[in-house]
């Protein structure tokens, strides 16, 4: 599987995402935000950072980029799309994922290792989280619908929901399951050197969607 990693002005995790994709897949390349050409990749990562300075709202401007238009079309065709942190915010703003991300409940930027539970399998993942606007929110009726559809992908383990997300939600998918967004950073947990390789399981999940 060949991955493409979007690069916006203000992205800062695209290099780690690229590395994670190289470790996991058969190759990866950066995709510049001004180009509509996805260069024949099989899946796309929308990386973390502060795209377009996060002006207005986090992710609000990035979703109008030519690259994101192409990603929306590809996602509609079933291509795996993984949004991490700011990428999750972009996908929510673009309407590719339900819900929104709000300021952390304590108004602090939090940076620490968190434990996630994968919904369904119950698998426990240890990966880093670092964000100031990671409080997942969706209205109750929408959340109920998402739970029924199996669109909750990851929840924070007990004691790890430091941003105040509703129902401890850390990551969600679209109805089809090919678009996944999460606040914690699987791309920072792909090498034993940094303490955990659990992040690779998120990439594996996405390549499973492709197959």
């Amino acid at each position, binding site marked *: 599987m060949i991955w493409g990693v979007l690069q916006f002005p203000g992205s800062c995790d695209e290099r780690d995402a690229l590395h994670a994709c190289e470790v996991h897949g058969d190759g990866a390349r950066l995709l510049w935000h001004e180009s509509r050409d996805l260069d024949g990749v099989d899946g796309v990562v929308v990386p973390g950072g502060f795209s377009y300075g996060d002006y*207005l709202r986090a992710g609000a401007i990035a979703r109008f980029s030519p690259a994101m238009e192409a990603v929306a079309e590809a996602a509609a065709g079933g291509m795996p799309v993984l949004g991490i942190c700011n990428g999750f915010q972009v996908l929510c703003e673009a309407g590719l994922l339900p819900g*929104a991300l*709000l*300021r952390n*409940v*304590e*108004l602090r930027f939090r940076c620490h290792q968190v434990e996630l539970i994968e919904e369904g399998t119950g698998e426990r993942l240890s990966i880093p989280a670092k964000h100031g606007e990671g409080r997942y*929110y969706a*209205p109750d009726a929408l959340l109920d619908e998402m739970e029924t559809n199996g669109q909750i992908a990851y929840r924070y383990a007990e004691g790890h929901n430091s941003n*105040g997300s509703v129902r401890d939600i850390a990551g969600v998918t679209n109805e089809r399951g090919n678009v996944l967004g999460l606040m914690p950073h699987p791309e920072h947990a792909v090498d034993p050197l940094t303490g955990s390789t659990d992040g690779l399981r998120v990439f594996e999940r996405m390549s499973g969607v492709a197959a």
Partner: protein
Amino acid sequence: MLIRPKEGILDPQGKAVERALPALGFEGIEHVHVGRMVELEAESPEQLGELCEKLLANTLIEDYEIQTL
């Protein structure tokens, strides 16, 4: 355009401001909400609603109000 957090959605920024007020001697102030204001000049104001819906506000979490001067 005035854009503010929707009623019922926790607004920690408003709460933080509210909590600071008694220390400054301001009493009896409640329900503080912090939003933002966007000023602009428009030739045709009728398009501003759509502008709010599409870009300036995220209507899942924010309400907006348009005032023409």
